[in-house]
């Protein structure tokens, strides 16, 4: 177990280092610098600007300085929004994005499990078919298409909900729906295939032979075993929700972190793009790591089998 944990932790650290180093050197490979292009700046001013941002030092000195900053939690400063640091943007945007993400999780996990279990219990029937059509559509409709369609029908045709912006609970309904569609479909599919596998096991046959009703068997014996892998979906699901939030926040004009990411891309605010990329990647990689550990704690089979058959 300890070996397994330390191996995973090492992989996490190397990946983080790759992201940080990769983004830093990619950013410095861009020709030009942030102050070229504005009207003729006197050389003295340019020099002091370079000195202020540390751009007059060698690239290795800058790299070390940047790493040091990162280790103390400093993600850099925005160039477009003078005097504001990336940390400030994160402090403002993260609570909004986190609320949206949490709501999407609260919708997608129960809905996905319910849909998947229902499909597996009535395998081959119209219920199975309906559930799988819904989940295939959920995987195939891109989130930006879904959110535009939701806006079109619910706001413009039916005038039921506000089109965009952030404020009351009503503002969060459509973004949450749009954000949870893909994870719901994903969870439903995986739950169905796990459930189908579990329901074919011998102990389920024993329970049926004892005369227990199918519904009770599915819920008490089947679901409990089929749900264990749900924990391992939480990793990919959090990735889907995070990248989904880029589009959703842009379309619904929500002032979250995803929106700032899009702004900084549009404005070519390189330090901010890099800072946010590192922040997002770290969040995702750490959550994947935690999910891995949680799963191996809960399912003893993984600990024994996985080190050998990890890719087999």
């Amino acid at each position: 177990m300890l070996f397994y944990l330390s191996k995973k932790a090492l992989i996490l650290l190397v990946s983080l280092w790759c992201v940080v180093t990769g983004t830093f050197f990619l950013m410095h490979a861009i020709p030009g610098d942030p102050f070229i292009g504005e009207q003729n700046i006197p050389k003295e001013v340019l020099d002091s600007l370079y000195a202020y941002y540390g751009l007059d030092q060698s690239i290795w000195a800058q790299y070390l300085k940047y790493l040091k900053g990162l280790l103390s939690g400093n993600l850099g400063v925005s160039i477009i929004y003078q005097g504001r640091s990336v940390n400030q943007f994160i402090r403002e945007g993260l609570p909004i994005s986190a609320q949206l993400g949490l709501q999407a999780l609260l919708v997608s996990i129960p809905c996905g499990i319910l849909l998947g279990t229902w499909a597996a219990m009535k395998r081959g029937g119209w219920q199975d078919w309906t559930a799988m059509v819904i989940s295939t559509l959920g995987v195939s409709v891109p989130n930006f298409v879904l959110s535009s369609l939701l806006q079109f029908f619910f706001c413009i045709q039916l005038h039921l909900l506000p089109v965009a912006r952030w404020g009351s609970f009503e503002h969060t309904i459509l973004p949450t729906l749009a954000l949870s569609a893909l994870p719901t479909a994903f969870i439903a599919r995986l739950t169905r295939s796990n459930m189908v596998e579990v329901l074919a096991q011998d102990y389920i046959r024993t329970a049926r032979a004892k005369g227990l009703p199918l519904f009770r068997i599915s819920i008490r014996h089947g679901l409990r075993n089929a749900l264990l892998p749900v924990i391992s979906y939480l990793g990919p699901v959090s990735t889907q929700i995070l990248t989904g939030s880029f589009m959703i926040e842009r379309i619904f004009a929500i002032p979250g972190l995803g929106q700032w990411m899009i702004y900084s891309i549009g404005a070519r605010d390189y330090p901010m793009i890099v800072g946010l990329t590192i922040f997002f990647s770290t969040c995702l990689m750490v959550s994947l790591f935690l999910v891995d550990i949680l799963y191996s704690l809960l399912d003893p089979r993984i600990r024994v089998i996985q080190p050998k058959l990890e890719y087999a």
Partner: protein
Amino acid sequence: MLENSYSKDAWHRLISNGPARFALWTLAILFAMAIFGPLISPYSYSQINLPLKNTPPSAQFWFGSDELGRDLFTRIWWGARISLFIGITAASLDATIGILWGSISAYAGGKTDELMMRICDVLYAIPYLLVVILLTVIRGTGICTILIAMTCTGWINMARICRSQILQLKEMEYITSSRAIGASPRRILFFHLIPNAIGPIVATMTLTVPTAIFTEAFLSFLGLGIQAPAASWGVMVNDGLSAMRYYPWRLLIPAAMITLTMLSFNLLGNALRDALDPRLRK
């Protein structure tokens, strides 16, 4: 002979599957229209006709026109060319790198395998979409950049699937016997191992295509992908979004095209995975 009957069986299983038939027909029509659509239209994709801007679908403009009076019918099929080209090229690039990496890793075994798979682990942990965004921001927009960015981390999935297949096949007796008669590792890999792992490889490739199409549309939607006046579905949805209140067809038609294409590839990929499943072969 055996290979032949295997593919015949798989084909039968595939076309007896309703959704797969639907997907095949849809894709056939899409490909045909992507090739011939722009040819049968009297307009070019960038031809501006300001007096006729924002006209609804009619006999003159089958899918309507946009804010510059460009014919949406022509633009949709140009978009199909871009999307299908990117989807298929990205899937082939991913497959080439992934198959080579995965099969070499599995065949070599030992320390080499361990090292190659650790490299995969490290790259796999890096979020795909963030890498794509970062590279397009830095390298500038264009189809080539999008393809490079998508291939950077996209091949890992294929490498893992290919490796697990080859690990299983490697122990088979026909591999031992071909090694005994002195076949070179290259021959064993390319003539025995990879052809026998082709089922999961094809299914994975098919499922890579919708991801690539989505990524291109996503980037174009953000303004990082294909640039005007070229017509990408992502750009068209983005333009349509601001006009949806009065000119809904400008949003609905490209949105439907993206969805239909991704749906067909997903359905086909899932059906292929079932049809080519080695467990059903026995």
